[in-house]
Structure formats: structure tokens, C-alpha cells
């Protein structure tokens, strides 16, 4: 049992999260009972605002558990070497203990998570009868397989991520298919229970190999191609020099972080587009729904890519570059533009390829032709172009808007902002749900909308003004650059306003609303604060 205690110390964070969740659930129960009252039921299918308050922290805790119990939070997921911490290999423990105890803790934590969620759902009276046993087994099997796959050494870099995604998707697909087919609980248990010992054996094998330092080398698969391209690269390298330090920094940023978003897109979007190849998925609504999901993926994935792009930039190595902070940040911003464009080039290639190969292109062309007959060809083309530009801009915005937090290099600020975002989401969701459900509340919000928007615009302008003053005072930007930046921002706002007026020219939609939407959507304060954040991190 000494080994169990030794390894349990590695997962103190999970215990804290479980305890925090328990406290949260009690608080939720009390608040619901005393303040909200029984008039607001918890609806799980589809979830209403009150259910979201329950579901969102559970989901985050689940992802956190996967991260902490696989040791994925502290290791390089894409590396060929096992992610299992090497320092634990020197402990006087068997491979069975090294694999078994963390797996047991992970399974217990994930199952407890479901147990707590199901218990709370029953106590507070949800509309759906939440099952107990098989979801607990499902949670345990998920984390067990994640552990087994992440602890295994691989012969090719990145293969771990691909296999983990495939495994997660496979488990989910089997379970969701079983749910849709109304399979009996006993069948679920029969499907899921044997996976635990199999995952344990795979994990033990992976840990044993990692402990012996065995890392397979499958580079021979690519050697021939690499040798050919290597020859080309070497001959090119001799003559390739950077014309300026800024150009070198842009190259550095692209090589370090630029390919993250395109890689995520290349991993996710083709899987989404596979839906087009399923027989029967050839009606216009389904085809457009699949294409729409693929189009929404880059902005969504940019949220996950953004922290990776900013975090390592606050390193001492970057701080020692003999380049002005403004230029270092500008190189990063330029990289985000290229990264966004590369991701979108991939999305367009994937969508066109999938539509052509699946034979669904005709459906899209037909629907666009119908649309152009109604609205006019020029307007239809403009709609498509503006939609694409908006999505591309949204992707870039998601990449850069939290950059100032990551560039600060302060761990407490990064974690605090994530927590603040989560709390804001939890606080706003029931309110939004209430607005959507209650016509009376909708009326109140609509009447107060000018004031709400005016307050938001005012806050944004004050924040932008403060950042500009600090930038000028700290001599990071001169007055000319500040004026040029302000003019560029104003131009973007006016352009967006013009497009919005063109699209939504209706007496029902007041112009001030469109103006406020344009002002609030064009990034200002947070992007401008990025050089300040980097400067703060550079000279601590």
C-alpha cells in the first residue's frame, strides 16, 4: 500500500477538484432550493440554463481528470517517448503498480464524477432518468484507454494524438450507437467492462517499455522521402538568409506555433466531412449542416490553439532576443494571420474535395443556384464572400484576443482568466436561457439594449484609450504608430458597419445596433495590450 500512497501524491490536484465540485454541488442545491425555487426545473434534453450550471463544471472536471491522470498536463503529447514521468520509474515499484494505481485512481475519479452528477440530477429532480452503472463504466473505460495510449512509446511523432482521438471517437460512437438503439443496460456493461483489464494490460506493457527506455523508431518509413527533401533543403539552406531580424522572428514564430491551427484543422475537419460519405446523407439540409459544421471548426479550434501560441513566447529565450517588444509581438501577430489563412486554405480544399468525392457537390451547386435566382447572383456571391471573410476574421480574432494573457507569462493570470471565463459562462448561461425562454424578459432586455450596448462600447473605448496611453508613455509605440493603428481600427469598424448595413437594412434593426456590433467585434484593447503584456513578462 506504500506504493499506492506514493503515487496518490501525484494526483492531489484531482482530489482538490473533486472536493471543490462537491462544495459546488451543495451550493447549487441550496441556491436552487432557496433562491431559484421549484418553478425552474432542470431540463437535460436539451439542457436548459440550470442544467448547464450542472453540466459545464462536470465537463471541465472530466477533461481535467483526463489531463492529470494521463500526465498529459506536464508532458509533450506529440513526442515519441512515453508521457509517463521518468522520475517515477526510479521508484521501487513494479510495472504493474506504476500502471495499475494511477489507472485505478483515474477510473475512480471519473466514475465518482458521474456518480456525483447522477446523484445531484436525481436529488434536484431532472427530467431524464439518469442511469448509474454503465455511464460510470464508460467514464472509467475512457480514461483507462487514454492512459494506456498516452503512456505507450511510439515510433512516429504525433501518432499518440491521432490514436487517442480515434480511440475516443470509437468509444463514443459505440456507446452513442448503443444509446440510439436502446440497448439494455446489461449489454452496455458487457461491452464496457472487459475494456478495463485490456486497457490495463496495454498500459502495463507501455510503462514497461518506457521504463526500459525502449522507443521504437519507424523513421525508415519516411527515410527515403526525407533524404530526398533533406538534400533539397540543405542545398537551399546555404543560400537562404533572412533579410532582417523581423523576418527571422516571423520564421521562428511560424515554425514554433504557426502550424498548430492548420494541424488541428487537418485532424478534425476531414473526420467531420466523413459524414458526407454516409449513404442517405445527400439531402440539402444535411449536406449544408455538415459543411456548416466544417466551416465553424477553425474559429472553434482557434480557441484551443491560442494558448499554445502565446505561452512559450514569455520564455527567457524570447526575452533575450535583441528585438523591440513591439516587433516580437508584431511577428507573432503576422504568424497568426498566416496560420489562419493556412487553416482556411485547408478547410476549403477539404470541403471541395469531400463534396466532389462524395458526389454531394451537385446538391450545393443546385441550392446556391436557387439562392442566386432569389437574391441575385452578385448578392449571392457577396453573401458567400462576406461569410467566408467573417469566419476567417473570427478565426484570427480567437487566436489573438487572449494573447495578452499568455504573453504576460504569469501562471496565476493565465489560470485565473480561465477560471474567470468559466465562472462568467456559468453565471451568464442561466440568464441567457431565461432571456430565450421568457418573452417578458426579452422585452426588458430589448428596451435596455441601447444602454447595455452603450455601456459596453464605452468600456471598450476606455480600455482602448488606457492601453494607448500606457503604450505611448512606455515608449513602446510612437504617436505616429498609434495614430496609424487607430486609423486602421476605425477603417475596419466602418467597413464592418457598411457590410452590416448592406445586409441588414431593415427598419426593425436600428443603425446604432449595427454600429455597436461593429465596434464591439473589431479587436482593440486586448490586441493592443499584447506588447504591454510581453514587456511586463520580459522585464520582471
Amino acid at each position, binding site marked *: 500500500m506504500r506504493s499506492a500512497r506514493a503515487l496518490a501524491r501525484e494526483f492531489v490536484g484531482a482530489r482538490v477538484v473533486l472536493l471543490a465540485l462537491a462544495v459546488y454541488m451543495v451550493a447549487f442545491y441550496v441556491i436552487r432550493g432557496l433562491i431559484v425555487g421549484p418553478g425552474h426545473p432542470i431540463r437535460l434534453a436539451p439542457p436548459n440554463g440550470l442544467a448547464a450550471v450542472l453540466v459545464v463544471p462536470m465537463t471541465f472536471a472530466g477533461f481535467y481528470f483526463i489531463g492529470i491522470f494521463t500526465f498529459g498536463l506536464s508532458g509533450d503529447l506529440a513526442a515519441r517517448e512515453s508521457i509517463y514521468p521518468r522520475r517515477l520509474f526510479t521508484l521501487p515499484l513494479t510495472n504493474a503498480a506504476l500502471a495499475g494505481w494511477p489507472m485505478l485512481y483515474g477510473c475512480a475519479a471519473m466514475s465518482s464524477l458521474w456518480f456525483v452528477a447522477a446523484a445531484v440530477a436525481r436529488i434536484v429532480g431532472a427530467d431524464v432518468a439518469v442511469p448509474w452503472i454503465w455511464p460510470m463504466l464508460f467514464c472509467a473505460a475512457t480514461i483507462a484507454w487514454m492512459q494506456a495510449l498516452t503512456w505507450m512509446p511510439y515510433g512516429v511523432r504525433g501518432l499518440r494524438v491521432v490514436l487517442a482521438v480515434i480511440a475516443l471517437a470509437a468509444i463514443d460512437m459505440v456507446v452513442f450507437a448503443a444509446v440510439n438503439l436502446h440497448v439494455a443496460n446489461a449489454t452496455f456493461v458487457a461491452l464496457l467492462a472487459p475494456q478495463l483489464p485490456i486497457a490495463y494490460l496495454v498500459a502495463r506493457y507501455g510503462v514497461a517499455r518506457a521504463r526500459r527506455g525502449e522507443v521504437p523508431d519507424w523513421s525508415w518509413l519516411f527515410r527515403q522521402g526525407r533524404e530526398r527533401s533533406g538534400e533539397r533543403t*540543405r542545398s537551399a539552406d546555404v543560400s537562404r*538568409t*533572412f533579410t532582417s*531580424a523581423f*523576418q*527571422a522572428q516571423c520564421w*521562428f514564430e511560424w515554425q514554433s506555433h504557426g502550424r498548430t491551427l492548420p494541424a488541428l484543422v487537418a485532424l478534425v475537419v476531414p473526420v467531420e466531412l466523413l459524414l458526407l460519405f454516409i449513404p442517405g446523407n445527400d439531402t440539402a439540409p444535411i449536406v449544408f449542416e455538415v459543411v456548416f459544421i466544417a466551416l465553424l471548426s477553425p474559429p472553434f479550434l482557434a480557441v484551443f490553439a491560442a494558448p499554445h501560441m502565446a505561452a512559450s513566447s514569455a520564455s527567457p*529565450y524570447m526575452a533575450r532576443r*535583441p528585438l523591440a517588444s513591439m516587433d516580437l509581438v508584431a511577428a507573432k501577430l503576422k504568424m497568426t494571420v498566416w496560420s489562419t489563412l493556412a487553416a482556411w486554405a485547408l478547410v476549403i480544399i477539404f470541403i471541395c474535395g469531400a463534396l466532389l468525392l462524395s458526389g454531394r457537390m451537385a446538391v450545393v451547386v443546385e441550392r446556391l443556384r436557387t439562392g442566386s435566382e432569389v437574391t441575385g447572383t452578385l448578392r449571392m456571391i457577396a453573401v458567400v464572400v462576406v461569410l467566408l471573410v467573417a469566419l476567417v476574421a473570427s478565426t484570427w480574432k480567437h487566436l489573438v484576443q487572449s494573447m495578452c494573457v499568455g504573453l504576460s507569462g504569469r501562471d496565476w493570470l493565465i489560470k485565473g482568466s480561465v477560471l474567470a471565463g468559466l465562472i462568467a459562462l456559468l453565471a451568464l448561461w442561466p440568464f441567457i436561457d431565461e432571456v430565450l425562454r421568457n418573452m417578458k424578459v426579452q422585452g426588458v432586455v430589448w428596451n435596455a439594449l441601447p444602454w447595455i450596448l452603450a455601456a459596453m462600447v464605452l468600456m471598450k473605448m476606455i480600455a482602448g484609450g488606457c492601453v494607448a496611453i500606457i503604450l505611448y508613455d512606455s515608449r513602446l509605440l510612437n504617436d505616429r504608430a498609434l495614430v496609424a493603428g487607430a486609423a486602421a481600427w476605425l477603417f475596419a469598424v466602418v467597413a464592418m458597419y457598411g457590410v452590416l448595413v448592406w445586409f441588414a437594412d431593415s427598419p426593425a434593426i436600428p443603425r446604432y445596433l449595427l454600429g455597436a456590433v461593429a465596434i464591439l467585434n473589431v479587436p482593440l484593447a486586448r490586441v493592443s495590450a499584447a506588447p504591454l503584456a510581453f514587456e511586463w513578462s*520580459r522585464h520582471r
Partner: protein
Amino acid sequence: MVVRLRGCAADERARISDQRVSATSICALPTPIPVEFASSLQQSDPVIHIANLTRRFGAKTALNSVSVSMPRGAVYGLVGANGAGKTTLIKHVMGLLKAEGGSVRVFGLDPVADPVGVLSRIGYLSEENDLPGWMTVNDLIRYSRAFYPRWDDTYAEELRNAFALDSAAKIKNLSKGQKARAGLLVALAYRPELLVLDEPSSGLDPIVRRDILGAVIRTIADEGRTVLFSSHLLDEVEEVADHVTMLRHGTIVLSAPLADIKAAHSGLSLDEIFISTARA
């Protein structure tokens, strides 16, 4: 300038001892090519001037009213026990830390207000080699030379050959010693006016340590260049330093030319002086 070279062969030592050192004198490293040294400083101006520098981390005072002035052309040894404040002092010189009290001037410039002006003239190597692991040695050279107009391609190539670094090898696949050599290459190849070495030899084998010492000598071989060298290995400091500053609990307890220190301590080695000062 007198430089002691205990680690070299006797005939080599005899050849170079008590005379201005040339880079060929040690370790078979390539000959430095004299370059025009354009410094904005006057000969008498200190390269580093620190006045009453104070820095606290929470309740702990890392540096307590430290004042140091380092003249041009000297090898300055910075010694002290773990946690004495050596790295904190060097980080202030590099502009990575902002002075809470007092002032720091490097080449007469504030390294926080003008990081480009200062960093472009400093070569830096630390124990924590944080070069980007994904780069190849060739990438590192290509990338680094873009920042320094005075980068010398021939010299860089000579260093790469002398250090036996494979240009196609990735940094992350290099051994600790090879990483230190790669760091040394990019710190030296633009012939910096000031070479800052923060515990560069810790955990490295004697061959790499010899290369680092060679780098110190190569740097001062070029007229007017300065070295700030912090190390636990006092015999190394003793071999190359003209001036030694000893820190204890963030305070300077000893700062004088090495010859004066040794004269005052009746021929004791720096190791023995360090231990006796630490116990005092």
C-alpha cells in the same frame, strides 16, 4: 593582461603565460579574425555600472544595495554560494529583471528601457540552456545571425567545426555538452562586446569546460571586449578572471582584482578564500 591557464599543456602554457592571450593558445580552437571594434564607449567608461541595486522576491532580499563597476577589457568573475544572488545580478544586466531600487547601466544604457541597444552587444550563455529544441544547428545559426549585423559567417563555421556540431542535428537531440557548445557558438559568432556566462560549466565534462574557458580567452583576445563570468568552479574563475566579486546573501562581501585578493590572503587559492569568507 595576465591570464592564467592551468588546464593547458605545459609547453602551451609556457608559450602564452604572462602575455596577451591569443585564441590559438588554447584548445586548438580556430583563430579569431580581428574585426573592427566600434564602440560608442570611451576607453574609461565602465561596461557595466550598477549602483545600489536592490531586489526582493517576496520576503527574501536577493540583492541588497549592490554596487559594481566593470571596466572594459576585463574578465570579471562572479562567485558565491547557491542563492547568493549571482544569477539575479546577471538577469538585471540582461534586462530580464527590473531594478526595484538603484540603477543598472550596460554600455551606458538602461537594459530595460533599451533592450535592443544592450542585447545586440551581449553574448550570453547560461547553465539552463533554453535553445529551441525543434531547431537544427543550421537553423539556429541562420536564425541567430539575422539579429546581429556583425555576425561573422566564417568564424561561426570555424566554431561549428571546432565544436564538432552536425549542422543537421536537432538541438533537442544534442547532449548537454553539445547544447552548451551550440549556445556558445551563437554567443560568440558576432564577437560581442560583452560576454556574459552564467554558470556555463555546471554539469559539463572537462572538454566542454575547456571550450568555454577558451571562449573567454578568445573574447578578451579581441581588444576591449569584456567578460562577466559566474561560476561555482572557482579554479576556472581563478584561471581567467582579472577581478573577482564575491556575493553572499545578496551582498558583496569581496570585490577586488584577483592579484590583490591573493596578495591579501597570503597566496591562498580562491577556493580557500571563498570558504574562509563564507565562514566569516
